[in-house]
């Protein structure tokens, strides 16, 4: 446990700036998406076991905790996809290593441009489902 604490502390104080933060976020988002994936595949497989269980799970996914978790998933998935693309491209093109910081900032910009409307649309649908009139 102390090893974990010192790892977190050293990671946060290491002065690698954007590149280091993206490296950390790539790991955290990867682990988060994997956790969701395990729950998601197990949950959807319930249709093969019993439709009754499947229906109950689908209703459970429409509750606020899952709606909020889904927003975090959207950000994690989009970030991991775009940052992973940056990593793969830079590894294949050593001539671009001079422009690491530009690539890093460009990735942050693209993530923001894709994630912001995604999260807004999903949040709007959830707000309408929870507070919408008549339903």
């Amino acid at each position, binding site marked *: 446990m102390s090893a974990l604490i010192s*790892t977190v502390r050293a990671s946060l104080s290491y002065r690698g700036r954007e590149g280091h933060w993206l490296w950390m976020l790539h790991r955290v988002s990867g682990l988060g998406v994997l956790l969701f994936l395990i729950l998601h*595949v197990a949950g959807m*497989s319930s*249709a093969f*076991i019993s*439709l009754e269980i499947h229906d109950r799970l689908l209703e459970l996914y429409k509750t606020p905790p899952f709606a909020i978790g*889904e927003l975090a998933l959207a950000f994690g998935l989009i970030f991991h*996809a775009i940052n992973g693309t940056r990593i793969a491209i830079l590894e294949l093109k050593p001539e671009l290593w001079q422009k690491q910081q530009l690539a890093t900032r460009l990735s942050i910009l693209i993530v923001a441009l894709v994630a912001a409307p995604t999260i807004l649309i999903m949040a709007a649908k959830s707000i309408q489902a929870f507070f919408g009139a008549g339903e």
Partner: protein
Amino acid sequence: MSTLNPSAPASPRRVARPIPQGRNRFERAMWLFMRFSGLALLFLALSHFGFQHIIVGTHQLSSEDTIVRWGLAGESITVSQLFWRLYYGVMVLLAMLHGLNGLRQVAYDYLKNKTVYNAFMAAAAALILAVTALGVIALIVGVNASGAVEAIAR
């Protein structure tokens, strides 16, 4: 003062041990797999998320839709159901293995105790492979409309 003399032979302690050939091949294969599966998942996972989670939305989900898209167990499947099953099957396999290898890399960095690392990875791999198998079996068999767990025994 021999360490300051550039012409002195390097201390044997400083020579890095070469990585065993077998492990080197495995890591190279995994490195390649992460790139290719990542590229495939870029299209598969993002198209799935964009369609089901953003355009359709979780609040519209129902088991009727699952049956239409996926098909019932024991019934012949349509072309579109076959497409969805293959699409999800490839995605589940690639995503789970991509995640398992990513987890292995992260765990290797932080779990310094070899016994702890081995136990953790054995448990994680067992869980991930079991859920993957469950998902693939579900896709092959189809939706169970009879609503009874006993139907598996048929």
